[in-house]
């Protein structure tokens, strides 16, 4: 059962990374326009927002 000493921290760390990634994407506004992103992918041109 000593393998649990490794496995449990690994499992928790991985899911914490997932949680962190989700909160990051939320903060950076990736969930602000869900319908828009679905349509943007249909546009063939380079469709990045205007930014230097």
């Amino acid at each position, binding site marked *: 059962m000593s393998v649990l000493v490794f496995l449990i921290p690994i499992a928790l760390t991985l899911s914490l990374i997932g949680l962190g990634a989700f909160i990051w994407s*939320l903060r950076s506004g990736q969930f602000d*326009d*869900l319908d828009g992103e679905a349509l943007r992918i249909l*546009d063939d041109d380079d469709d990045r927002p205007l930014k230097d």
Partner: protein
Amino acid sequence: MGCCGVRGENACYAPGSAALWVKEQEDGTRELHLMVPGIHCAACISTIEKGLRELEGLEEARVNFTLRQVRARWRDETFDPDAILRKLDELGYAARPFDPAEAGFAADDREGRELLKALAVAGFAAANVMMFSISVWAGADPVTRDFFHWISAAIALPAIAWAGRPFFRSAWRALSRARMNMDVPISLAVLTAAMMSLYQTATHQQHAYFDAAVSLLFFLLIGRYLDHRMRARARSAVSQLMTLSATGATVLDEEGRRRFLPMEALKRGMRVFVAAGERIPVDGIVEEGRSDVDVSLITGESNPEPVEPGRKVYAGAMNLTGPLVIRLTAHGEDTFLSEVIRLMSAAEQGRSAYVRIADRLAGLYAPVVHVLAGATLLGWLFWTGFNWPVSLLHAIAVLIITCPCALGLAVPAVQVVAAGVLFRNGIMVKDGAALERMAEVDTVIFDKTGTLTLGRPQLMDTGPVSTQALAIAAGLARASTHPLSRALVEGVETRGIIPEPVQDVREHPGQGLSGRWRGREVRLGSRSFCNVPETMPESDLPQIALAVEGRQPVLFTFADTLRPDAAETIRRLKAAGLKVEMISGDREGPVRAVARELGIEVWRSGWTPQQKLAYVEGLGKAGARVLMVGDGINDAPALAAGHASMAPSTASDIGRTAADMVFLGQSLSAVWLAREVALRGRQLMTQNFALSLVYNALAVPVAIFGYATPLFAAIAMSASSIVVVGNALRLGFIDRRLRRGFSLEGGMDKADCERERGRKAA
């Protein structure tokens, strides 16, 4: 859908006004938020973003398709924000700047993000705790089991404390007002489950319910978030319609310079300029200019009224033919509009007394559950000879198992699907309770002008009038934007007649048009302007006369166009056993004509807003559940007083504010669709409640007799939630057959979008 403002004629913004909405950010960039309701498809996104990219100095332009908004950012101080509006106009999009904080989007968005974060944390905790729980259920030895319970506690307790806040807050609010809602039993179950599991863990017992507590939160947060998203989207769409009409006026100073001022800066005695085709922004007295004004939104009167210096005009009227200068008389408290708002807020109080089905049920449900749990505790105390830990364990198991997980999802799941179906059909539901009230309606009262009709005149059968007269009249009318002129041209052209060329056409605001045809003077306009003899019969319907020099004048009669599907909608509502009535501020003649055409037996004409309000309130007191459908400023109090209310998107701002639901497009079938979906939604809600009851009837005895192990709780709760959500999703199937039998297909596809844009650009 009109591009901006009411009925699509308003100028969307006044030049120079965009600077008022520019927000300076902390990092030195400037930001402007714009509402662009014309965004309909993928091509719109790239057209706008590429077009704006051409502007010198603009750093970022981003379309938010979901909310139909554009956010522009730049650093350069000399950059003129009006250039963005001009560019959008050039591209064929009407836009209006707004303040996100004021419009409530910023605050709203924060709430949505909080819910999503809570959902993510609850999901994380649920997945991990479930991993340990499954190991325990699979048969872990006591030491490993305790170890796993402790880790579960370490994950679950902070997660519950954090992700459960929306429920705890709402439960506390309800309790502190001595009310009961679903969040009270939810909070109680989650908290007691966590506490008891902690005690079980500390005393090395077998059963811990950490997984049940966090997955409960996870399920409920899904429902809560979906509900929030649907409401936020509908609200955003409604407020877009609302704020598009300019909230300010063009003021003339002593030297005659024009300046656009926001509403707050206006003062009594100022001179306000209103161009032809603009909506009059304030109450006042006409000082210069003659014109015709369309007052249909204020009084319901379908015939435009001529105005001249000295006449009083009200905010909300449309100035049709000539520019006007108005001396502002009333502002703030003493306008006609503020009187209507006062009536409206008084009427709304009746509606706020409505208690949502879910809350009504919570009022019954919570005491039953708590009594059951108490009885279980007492029963086990006697049975085991006052063994407190075991008795408490079983009592809390009852609380957990009856926790209204399925009940908490039963209502929001149905409402989210229903609002989604309606949204796709162009109907925006501002409030979940509106759907519940809609399902109870037994009387439908319509306004006439702008609601049953489009508020757009149509040339009636011309009878003995010669083709040549029609052609001359159309030749004259082409030069004017007066609604009757436009209707005349349209009517003549659809009859296949080519308008005659008329020279020297001049518009005489408030009177008519004059010109020369083959050397003879021709006039088109009011009876007096064309010297129509008294002997010719008057009509209740709007008429204009044509006088050709040396000939007998002829009259053209117009009638308001009915909304498409109006007759079919009324027929179906009556067939469904609803009482259909019409109340209008218009004169008797046009009202009777519409009533006869649509087969409405009960109708009233010439009513003031007060009379409409009193009538709807009176019916409500007599026990009727009234659905009020109206659009005008004069309908707003009645809309607020109705048990449920609907307004077309072309309605006045205040009409849309007062209504529960707003429908896009012209077809009146929206009224029928909304009722159908509301009825179906109520049916599914009842089914969901029944399913939850069946579940409880099966699970509660198990818990009372002490067999509710954590495994049983996990399976029973998840299964009941999935069944309820699955049942709610069936409402989505109604979508396809909803519009069957109506002439107008719903929605706006890409072709429509491009056509509309082309028209606007032209």
